[in-house]
């Protein structure tokens, strides 16, 4: 961008360039800080069972909802269920609220929440994918990895 040719305009131009640089810098640092504080890492059930996931930070976890593992409270909307990587690892997720329409046993879900000391994920949000044909990529990868490991170890599922 070019502004002006006269002297006062040149001063103006300098001011504007300075302003642009300053505000761009501010915006970028603001964005990066906000980004660092607000990314939620995904952990597979196996990582959580092994204690690799941090406590007291918001994380995401997911897998297939284990059949017959959904337990509801009889007094309020508390619900808990197990998610599995379909290999050895299962994680309990506890949630208070309304589950999404596509939540079903045997389907993939992702929950966002905080791990407590008993390795239970206290979820503030539970998501199920709208398209039934494919699973969320995180879960796909988890299942694929647990499969690969099972093969390597020679254990069958």
């Amino acid at each position, binding site marked *: *961008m*070019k*502004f*002006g*040719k*006269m002297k*006062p*305009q040149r001063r*103006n131009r300098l*001011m*504007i360039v300075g302003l*642009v640089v300053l*505000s*761009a810098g501010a*915006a970028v640092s*603001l*964005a990066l*800080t*906000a*980004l660092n*504080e*607000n*990314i*939620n*890492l*995904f952990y597979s059930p196996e990582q959580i069972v092994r204690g690799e996931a941090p406590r007291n930070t918001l994380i*995401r976890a997911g897998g297939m909802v284990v059949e017959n593992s959904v337990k*509801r409270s*009889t*007094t*309020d*909307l508390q619900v808990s269920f197990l998610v599995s990587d379909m290999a050895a690892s299962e994680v309990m997720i506890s949630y*208070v*609220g*309304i*589950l999404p*329409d*596509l939540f079903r046993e045997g389907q993939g879900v992702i929950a*966002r929440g905080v791990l407590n000391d008993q390795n239970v994920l206290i979820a503030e949000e539970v998501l199920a*994918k*709208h*398209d039934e*044909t*494919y699973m*969320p*990529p*995180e879960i796909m*990868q988890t299942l694929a990895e647990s499969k690969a490991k099972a093969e390597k170890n020679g254990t069958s599922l």
Partner: protein
Amino acid sequence: MIAELGHFSLILALGLGVCLAVLPSIGVYRRHEGLMRLAGSLSAGLFVFLLISFSCLAYAFWDDDFSVAYVARNSNSALPLQFKLSAIWGAHEGSFLLWTLIMGGWTFAVSVFSGGLSVDMRARVLAIMGALSIGFMLFILLTSNPFDRILPVFPADGADLNPLLQDFGLIVHPPMLYMGYVGFAVPFAFAIATLTTGRLDAAWARWSRPWTNVAWAFLTVGITLGSWWAYYELGWGGWWFWDAVENASFMPWLIGTALIHSLAATEKRGVFKSWTVLLAIFAFSFSLLGAFLVRSGVLTSVHAFAVDPERGMFILAFLVLVIGGSLTLYAIKVSGIKSEAGFDWTARETMILANNLLLVTAAGAVLLGTLYPLIYEALTDGKKISVGPPYFNAVFVPLMLLLFAIMAVSPASRWKKTPRETLRRQFPALIGSLIVVASLVLAFATEVSVAVILIDTLALWIVANLVRDLWSKVANKVAKLPALFQQTMSYYGMLLGHLGIAVTIAGVCTTVYYTEEKDLRMAAGDVAELAGYEFRLNAMRQIKGPNYVADQGEVEVFQEGRSVVKLYPEKRFYAVSKNVMTEADIDPTLFRDLFVALGEPVGDDAWAVRIHYKPFVRWIWFGGLLIALGGFCTVLDRRYRAVKRSRQAAVTLGVAA
């Protein structure tokens, strides 16, 4: 037969598109006026054959022709007629055909309403639009043909339309959105055409402005409808999720908003010429990027179409060709162009510049947040993250607050230099707004929030200064009332647009801070209290719709013992697609919505029930519609109709690249 006819028409349209891209270009190159003039009729032909093609697909849906794979996947004989027709754009293939049809429509419109353009310029613009439509049509024919048959054995009935999409919102939301996305192809084509002439004057800004405003207004309507649809149809009571697909429509809107302001400066004052061209390229690029994000499956989202690598590769290649090509052309051709006019820091130009910086930064921040999961995954060898709404809010809100402050003082500003006195006069209203908003909040709100007072004060300040500005235009007239109606349509458009923003700000801020919601376990007879209302679940019953069965609750709402309304939220089960859908019921009024949705049965005849009290939530969409109305208004401005043909013709005639 009809599907084949549709397919064949599309191929013919492709042929015409190739002619449109090539013949007028040869005409321009060899200064052959006959070839240049072909652009008009070729555009018409392109549009007509696309329309035939689209109508054929519509017919296949209307006729329940399940031998057409696309129809079989997205329709069902039990589907009500209006949804059969809107199912045309319910999935990838058909929606892209609609996108292409709209591209044809815009091309045709440009050819019709381009009387003021020189033959040469018109040929260039239409040829570029033709070239773009070639890309879109090839994409359909090669990767996403909606006319493919399942033969010889085809299903007796279709798999049904996704129930989320069986709704009025879906009938209108995508066409509006696409009108906006594709509409940005027009200023893009003008910008590129101007670049190819090598003469980057202010004329192209004058030509592009009405087109840009209309496209932008359509996009505004589309986004507003999308937000409204998400609110009542997804059943969570949210109206914006910073979902990747929402972002994909929001980024072009932000850039488009910057563009319509920057075009004004370029047209009126000849400043920011190269920047405006860049914005025009960006606006359309972001539209294409949006298409890529939604259709390639590169990002997961509730809205995303099914994953198909072939399609993703095609769009990516198209992106590289179109955006890379235009940015290269830009770099080559813009070198050495200087703006002549200088301006004071108080000038309207400065404010528009600030507006542009803030909006582009905001779009950049949204882009960063949307793509960050991809970047992170690549950098950390496959670690998956998501970027949540807190990021977007943290970055977006401060930028917008700055923008709103500038917005409040800008209507009174003048080109070149604003008298200090005029600027100073804008601030008393700020104090007044603060007093009014603070007392309103103290009087009515359950709790006092500084953020609400601050933001709503900004909104009221914007409105107050708009009123003052309008008044200043009539104050010294003898006949004040008629003068009120004698301003230019552009001016009314600006008033409406800015008023709409203020209304939306007030709605967003008040809703965010004062919404009350509860998720409850309720059985028939249970009563829940929320925000001074009592919600009583009277009964649950089963009902049957045309293609679903549903559990329906009757929730009666009382205020101070008086019955206010009965709401009927439903949990629908669509038999064919085996989908469960939450159908919320809402009691809307101007100042508050009562929202009730059913969760799932939780045993002992009890249901999970979600109730919301959402003050001012309507204002969000009402404001959005005002903004769009403002955009449409500007087109009616007399200046755009009385185009001085001869002079403009002289500007560009005979200038070949």
